[in-house]
């Protein structure tokens, strides 16, 4: 979407430029455009540099098309055209005028290849060419691009643009870009560079840190510059220390929410009902595959509503997992109540069978589950960088938890579950159909696991092995939190996640995980019933 807007804006710019400078600008560019398609990466690189130097905004849409991979060389003429797929054919347009050149078979055009260093040059060129754009958003992007490219050739345009700029935030970005360019330039006087360091110091984020750390370690730089840069670096690093701690805490919370999601269904089947369900992970997996199927349907029939696919997947995943859970309860677990070892073996077998069934139906390969646009990307909060996907998962896991608590504490259904699990004979004597309650409770736990699968499909592989990765962690969380206490699961999951993430920077991922396991073993020895032990008669039952 964004690139489309930029492309359109670029086109407007092109028209405006043509109005002002006449067709001469486009004519000057024509040989450069032709050069783009010749001489491999080096030839393209030279042509891009030439376009940046020519300072002709008409080149912007050409560069955008090159970046998007739409520029092709037409055989046998050898001219450069924009070619986009249109059914089985390619629709050709002239890159400068935008005039249609008809269609051609895909074999007739050769895509102009770009690599990373070319991508960098193209972005830098677009940046320096769009500094004067009428749209403040494009100017802001241009300033960021120049900040990164540090291209001395852009300095003159940058100064003119700064003088004209009215938008405060764009002006600041341009000033920072200018400082970055000046620091990189060999010819700028020392006092200008010192001022540039101060400008950058005020911004004080990681990118600035990167620039200044490089400078402070550069042996060739003058001593005064190095000193100033080093002191700013120390300042920024000190500020970062605080944010880093917060960032780790956020990662811990986020990992904790994933653990919570994986364990929350188990908290019902194992925690409340006492069934050791080794197939719990496979319920999560089924939820993830339901998401995949729902997304496939959306891709086929309603691609424009793709962002809603996850919301639709939620009830589907719940229904599928709950249905399978119900079937398992009816056919297997019902016959094994009170025999934990046999239950463990039987459910382990079911988990293998479910895995192989999914493998036979969907194949052993990972399935692609797309992220809706509202779950992609990240935003900055102070010095924290928070990704939307993780944020939504935290929110979702807490919401599922809250719903489950309400369902168990505040509804008649929850009341019957609690009654049956606390004192089965008494509940039966009161006229409750206990087998039916067992089945419904097991279905509820499985369904919640299916919900977890929808969220986990966003961060993990959707493969038949998805569930195995979570089964151990889930049991760990439930046992640590205290069997039978759903609040214990919440606290246990968040505590384990946080401890894991706080240890990771010091111990590494492998040792960190081992430490957490050792901690849990020690803890369970001290408190065998977990964080929140149930008290009273329920314990003995």
């Amino acid at each position, binding site marked *: 979407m964004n690139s489309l807007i930029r492309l359109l804006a670029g086109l407007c710019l092109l028209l405006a430029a043509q109005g002002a400078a006449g067709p001469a600008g486009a004519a000057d560019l024509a040989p450069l455009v032709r050069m783009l398609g010749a001489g491999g990466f080096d030839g393209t690189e030279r042509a891009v540099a030439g376009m940046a130097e020519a300072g002709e905004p008409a080149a912007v849409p050409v560069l955008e098309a090159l970046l998007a*991979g739409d520029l092709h060389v037409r055989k046998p003429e050898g001219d450069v055209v924009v070619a986009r797929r249109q059914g089985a054919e390619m629709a050709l347009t002239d890159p400068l005028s935008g005039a249609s050149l008809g269609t051609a078979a895909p074999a007739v055009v050769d895509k102009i*290849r770009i*690599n*990373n*260093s070319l*991508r*960098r040059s193209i972005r830098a060129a677009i940046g320096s060419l769009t500094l004067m754009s009428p749209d403040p958003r494009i100017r802001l992007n241009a300033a960021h691009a120049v900040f990164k490219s540090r291209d001395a050739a852009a300095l003159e345009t940058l100064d003119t643009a700064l003088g004209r700029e009215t938008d405060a935030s764009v002006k600041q970005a341009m000033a920072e870009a200018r400082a970055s360019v000046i620091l990189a330039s060999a010819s700028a006087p020392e006092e200008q560079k010192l001022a540039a360091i101060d400008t950058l110091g005020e911004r004080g984020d*990681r*990118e600035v*840190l*990167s*620039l*200044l*750390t*490089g*400078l402070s*370690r550069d042996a060739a730089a003058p001593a005064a510059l190095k000193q100033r840069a080093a002191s700013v670096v120390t300042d920024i690093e000190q500020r970062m220390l605080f944010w880093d701690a917060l*960032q*780790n805490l956020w*990662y811990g919370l*986020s*990992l904790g929410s*994933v653990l919570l999601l994986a364990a929350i269904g188990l908290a019902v089947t194992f925690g409340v009902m006492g069934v050791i369900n080794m197939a719990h992970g496979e319920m999560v997996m089924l939820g993830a595959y339901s998401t995949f199927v729902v997304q496939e349907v959306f891709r086929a029939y309603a691609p424009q509503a793709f962002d809603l696919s996850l919301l639709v997947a939620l009830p589907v995943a719940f229904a599928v997992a709950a249905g399978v859970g119900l079937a398992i309860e009816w056919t297997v677990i019902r016959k094994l109540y009170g025999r934990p070892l046999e239950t463990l*073996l039987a459910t*382990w077998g079911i988990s*293998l069978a479910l*895995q*192989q069934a999914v*493998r036979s139906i969907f*194949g*052993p*390969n*990972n*399935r*692609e589950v*797309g*992220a809706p646009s509202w779950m992609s*990307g*990240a935003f900055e909060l102070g010095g924290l*960088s928070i*990704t*939307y*996907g*993780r944020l939504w998962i935290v929110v979702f896991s807490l919401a599922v938890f809250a719903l489950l608590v309400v369902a168990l504490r505040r509804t008649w259904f929850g009341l019957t579950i609690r009654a049956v699990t606390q004192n089965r004979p008494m509940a039966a004597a009161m006229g409750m159909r206990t087998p039916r309650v067992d089945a419904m409770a097991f279905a509820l736990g499985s369904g919640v696991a299916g919900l977890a699968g929808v969220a986990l499909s966003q*961060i*993990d*592989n*959707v*493969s*038949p*092995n998805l569930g*195995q*990765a979570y089964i151990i962690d889930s049991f760990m969380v439930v046992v640590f939190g205290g069997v039978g206490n759903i609040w214990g699961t919440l606290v246990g999951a968040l505590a384990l996640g946080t401890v894991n*993430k706080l240890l*990771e*920077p010091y111990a*590494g*991922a*492998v040792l960190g*995980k081992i430490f957490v396991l050792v901690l849990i073993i020690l803890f369970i020895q001290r408190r065998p019933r977990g964080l929140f032990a149930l008290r009273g008669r329920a314990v003995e039952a």
Partner: protein
Amino acid sequence: MFLKDRVLAFASGAALSAAILAAPMAAQAQETIKVGILHSLSGTMAISETTLKDAMLMLIEEQNKKGGVLGKKLEAVVVDPASNWPLFAEKARDLLTKDKVAAVFGCWTSVSRKSVLPVFEEMNGLLFYPVQYEGEESSRNVFYTGAAPNQQAIPAVDYLAEKEKVQRWVLAGTDYVYPRTTNKILETYLKSKGVKAEDIMINYTPFGHSDWQSIVADIKKFGMAGKKTAVVSTINGDANVPFYKELGNQGIKAEDIPVVAFSVGEEELAGIDTKPLVGHLAAWNYFMSVEDPVNSAFIKQWKSFIKDEKRVTNDPMEAHYIGFNMWVKAVEKAGTTAPDAVIDAIVGVTVPNLTGGYSAMMPNHHITKPVLIGEIQEDGQFEIVSKTPGLVVGDEWSDFLPDSKDLISDWRAPMGCGNFNVKTGKCGGKGA
């Protein structure tokens, strides 16, 4: 754990008998040459290995259309070691003793190869191993058709240093033997090129690691020291998808910090949305996007065999293609499938590869290959940005590890040694 293993063994036993029943049990048993396929069809490794089983079945079917080998039809014997390392050795023994196969094509992980190695040496069988690995091994009975580190890792690092001017390196891998050995080799290599210790960060993660937030943040931080930084990834299997998703989410673009991977191919990318990954790199000896008539024909054949237009081809499939054709040629040259004769005949055998050239079996039982570097594209394919001008010979004993740099391997008579020490002039160094 004991209990779990027993259950697993039982379950995979059941899967095995199913697989044997499913394998073609033709009536003309005595007129065929049996070929063993030892790839996991269930368990964690099924994701990668099932494809190779299918590729082998296709190659065997093709060969039979051409009239088989030595006038006899080939017959595939498929077994399922179920991603269970000890089971690999059991199945290998069954293939060699009960089914009496002429050659076995199989294994993916190094640990599975190590598990079957003594069996092949004891029973004098032939194993063709199609996956890139850490080197440090050369057996008379094994043919390594995947890349050794000098055919993948070192050219990739050279590319980044030359073309992307990388000065700071993150070596990130899954915690097991392949990444650890490869990273040791790379670390020595980088230091020999003048990279300082503080510019190398090494990070290991457990198998199937799925929470990459802090590690990706660490990489980001490491890359903010004013020098161009790249990540060299030996992250294995399923852990790659969440790793790349996290890179995309935290906005690490290939233009800022490129990631070059040694275990990510077309098949792995099929499970990811590759838009945020455009420009990240992989080093292989084959890419599906290679423009060559032999490759186009192979892709067409594969799609029609598997009856799915969307299926992709990858590097280990090419390794099996080369290995299988080498075996066929060696058997025809020797006039028999007897292992000793084939081992003698196969050295020097040259067959076309899928990248428009020829690969040859060398005396150290490794093959010659070109090295390609590709950048990930939006469609999940790789755009080839670099190709070595000639072929690279697989180096089994790395020159960058202190205790293996003096070793060479040559299985031809009269040397016939997999670990000859050129300093002491004796056979029998490391890994005997």
